[in-house]
């Protein structure tokens, strides 16, 4: 069953004949009968031992579709295989906290801010895609983080964008920066989300590897909190939002999980294109569905597309799932089952709904003009009580039959070797005390002028003017303030403050202290507005985890952030790790970016950065 926007301009996927593909898709049946077939697992980024483990889990070779799914889900980006062992500290050292309703492991952390209201917030990276195609990379970065917020049951209410570029006068910066800023503005403005702050840092370390991080925050009634579990045997699996195309096939695993180099040029087609208008419709339809109580489970489709959403929702519930892939509405009829599973087409959500509610769900989708299609159903656990299986067919061919947990939860975990960078002692010895200092008035003047004119300190309005900070009418403070402040509740004056900060140069000198400093800065920025800091999100931007020096920086930064959070009493509620930010052998400065959330009982008590003129804003015109 499909509802369509006012008019179908497409074709039905069922028009495609199996015979259009050489001998049809690689089925489970075929995999059993051709155990020795050579598979391109290395090209897909899987190590030999990882491939062996897949064969062991399945008791046969994987089908082409299964292989693609494992390669995606076991990629660094999706599996956190190098960072997991370190990130545990955020949980272990988490301060006692009664506000947190959802934490690490969910799409985004959820923090209760009053008896009946909660906010959810998270920062994520879209570094590699933004280097390849700055506008779309940055735009879809905003789109992706907003869907994470939406998936928790929240209405997204603002975005922020910590950015890092190479030298301001480098030609590549002239290519990347305008595109990134236009992309963030283009998507966020069109979505109607105020941009309430961010960072723009220039440093040659980011030359071949700019950092585009995006943060979003949303608000929800506590009772509307959503879960991703595909619970309830017999429930219907619904794909909501845009049609599926060949966007970003292999994007996550290819772009975000390997060192970035000249070869990236050839990978360009894997970049996704965003449609903020569709996302706006998706937001409105999801919120209407939540409020009507029609959603049993929900998960956004981000990088890793359907593969990730299907396996995570099923694994979280311990259920199985049966999916008919030919039902997925396609933009291009000729897509293979593997492509459909790997597509990173934007603006899609996966819903689990009861059969009784399906009709109403489709009606809401139709009202907003988005596609909604029942593509599968939730199936029981195995007879022995072990979790169910994810079985996916395509035109009557079973192309996938896997335990979903093996993809979503039981990926490889590595305790990678760590070693302090050899040059660190020298770097640390080169103290600021040895720098020349201005000693005359003229020298002082020259220094001040140079600082004022430096790209890192100069006025940022040429960027921030391209962002809408007024939309939704609840922005209390935004650029050029140190924190963004939002009113949450017009009646009570309940509000929040948010600041996001990081300093890669500090972290390069001492990643432990550097992470703590980033935390302390964001914490201070929130505190000085008058808000009480309550929770933390982070985006950890680092080089290759396969480099022990980078891994040491990572381990130290995580330890620093976890210790800092413990000392300040603010838990990390969620975040993102971005590895492989390097060009050739040269890694970027370790760059932990930290967001701190604060709460106001009465946001009218916020303290702005500048002096407030004695008179309040002028009176209303005569009426």
């Amino acid at each position, binding site marked *: 069953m499909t509802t369509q926007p006012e008019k179908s301009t497409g074709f039905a996927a069922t028009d495609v004949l199996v015979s259009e593909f050489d001998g049809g898709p690689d089925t489970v049946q075929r995999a059993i009968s051709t155990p020795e077939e050579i598979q391109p697992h290395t090209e897909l980024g899987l190590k030999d031992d990882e491939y062996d483990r897949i064969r062991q889990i399945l008791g046969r070779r994987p089908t082409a579709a299964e292989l693609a799914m494992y390669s995606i889900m076991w990629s660094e980006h999706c599996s956190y295989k190098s960072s997991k062992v370190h990130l545990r500290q955020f949980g272990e050292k988490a301060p006692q906290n009664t506000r947190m309703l959802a934490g690490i492991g969910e799409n985004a952390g959820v923090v209760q801010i009053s008896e009946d209201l909660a906010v959810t917030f998270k920062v994520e990276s879209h570094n590699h895609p933004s280097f390849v195609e700055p506008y779309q990379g940055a735009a879809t970065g905003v789109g992706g983080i907003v869907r994470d917020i939406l998936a928790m049951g929240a209405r997204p209410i603002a975005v922020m964008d910590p950015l890092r570029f190479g030298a301001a006068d480098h030609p590549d910066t002239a290519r990347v920066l305008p595109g990134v800023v*236009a992309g963030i*503005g*283009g998507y966020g*403005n*069109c*979505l*109607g989300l105020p941009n309430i702050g961010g960072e723009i840092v220039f440093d040659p370390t980011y030359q071949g590897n700019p950092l585009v991080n995006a943060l979003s925050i949303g608000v929800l009634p506590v009772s509307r909190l959503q879960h991703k579990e595909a619970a309830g045997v017999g429930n219907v699996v619904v794909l909501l939002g845009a049609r599926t195309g060949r966007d970003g096939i292999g994007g996550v695993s290819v772009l975000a999980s390997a060192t970035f180099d000249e070869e990236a040029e050839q990978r360009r087609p894997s970049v996704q294109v965003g*449609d*903020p*208008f*569709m996302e*706006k*419709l998706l937001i409105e339809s999801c919120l209407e569905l939540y409020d009507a109580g029609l959603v049993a489970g929900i998960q956004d489709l981000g990088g890793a597309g359907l593969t990730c959403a299907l396996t995570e929702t099923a694994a979280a519930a311990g259920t199985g799932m049966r999916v008919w892939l030919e039902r997925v509405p396609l933009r291009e009829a000729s897509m293979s089952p593997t492509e459909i599973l790997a597509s990173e087409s934007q603006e899609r959500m996966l819903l689990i709904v009861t059969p009784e509610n399906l009709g109403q769900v489709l009606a809401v989708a139709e009202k*907003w*003009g988005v596609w909604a299609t029942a593509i599968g159903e939730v199936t029981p656990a195995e007879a022995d009580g072990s979790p169910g299986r994810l079985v996916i067919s395509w035109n009557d061919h079973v192309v996938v039959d896997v335990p979903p947990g093996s993809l979503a939860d039981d990926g490889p975990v590595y305790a990678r070797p760590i070693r302090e960078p050899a040059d660190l002692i020298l770097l640390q010895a080169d103290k600021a005390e040895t720098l020349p200092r201005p000693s005359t008035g003229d020298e002082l003047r020259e220094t001040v002028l140079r600082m004022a004119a430096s790209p890192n300190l100069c006025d940022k*309005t040429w960027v*921030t*003017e*391209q*962002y*809408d*900070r*007024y*939309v*939704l*009418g*609840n*922005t*209390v403070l935004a650029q050029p303030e140190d924190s963004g402040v939002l*009113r949450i509740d*017009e009646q009570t004056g309940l509000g929040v403050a948010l600041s996001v900060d990081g300093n890669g140069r500090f972290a390069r000198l001492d990643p432990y202290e550097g992470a703590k400093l980033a935390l302390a800065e964001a914490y201070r920025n929130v505190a000085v507005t008058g808000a009480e800091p309550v929770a933390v999100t982070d985006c950890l931007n680092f080089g290759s985890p396969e480099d022990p020096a980078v891994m040491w920086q990572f381990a130290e930064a995580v330890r620093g952030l976890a210790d800092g959070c413990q000392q300040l009493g603010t838990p990390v509620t969620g975040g993102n790790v971005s590895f492989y930010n390097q060009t050739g052998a040269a890694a970027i400065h370790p760059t932990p970016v930290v967001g701190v959330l604060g709460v106001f009982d009465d*946001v*009218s008590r916020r303290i702005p950065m500048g002096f407030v003129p004695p008179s*309040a*804003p*002028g*009176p*209303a*015109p*005569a*009426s």
Partner: protein
Amino acid sequence: MTMRIGVVTFPGSLDDGDAARAARIGGAEAVRLWHGDPDLHGVDAVILPGGFSYGDALRCGAIARFAPVMETIVAAARGGLPVLGICNGFQILCEAHLLPGALTRNQHLHFRNRDQLLRIESTDTAWTNGYAPGQEILIPVKNGEGCYVADERTLDALEAEGRVVARYLEGNPNGSQRDIAAITNEAGNVVGIMPHPEHAVEALTGPSLDGLGFFTSVLRALAGAGAGGQHPGGQ
């Protein structure tokens, strides 16, 4: 009796909630209207809010003009119903030929959001009768396609007939001809404005309270005191 101001939501409307809030703060009851429903539900005035209706595909406002609700609004506006188009709403009014001219890409090619000083040039409209002639107001501007263009004859006519409602001061944010920020139709009941009065109605969230006058003016107009005069309202 409380006046009822309708605020239309198109797919992609963004400032509809803010316009409704401003109408309430101004003293009216805000009534939400849906693009697909031609019924105006007996409202006394209509606001077309800012945003990116239909994703602003093609040209801003080009598709919204064909929404079922617009047919009713165009007819009612011709009959005297006060209509205010803000930003995307202004673009829709031009596309629907309720106002002359067009809004094109900002000359500097960027989206621009800043607090903008304006001068109210005409207080002879349903939406500006509460301002003092020549009054300067500070309200946010935020758009990517806010550059007002029309041919010379139309511009001259607008000036001669006192239909330029507001002009940009201290810097034209988008390259609009003759610094035009807002215009009105001949009857003064339909006003299109590029900057956002609805974002300047509360001390906590706006740069001033200067936008409130638009939402209080229309109440005076409806009460018979201002331009736009008596009219049946609604359908």
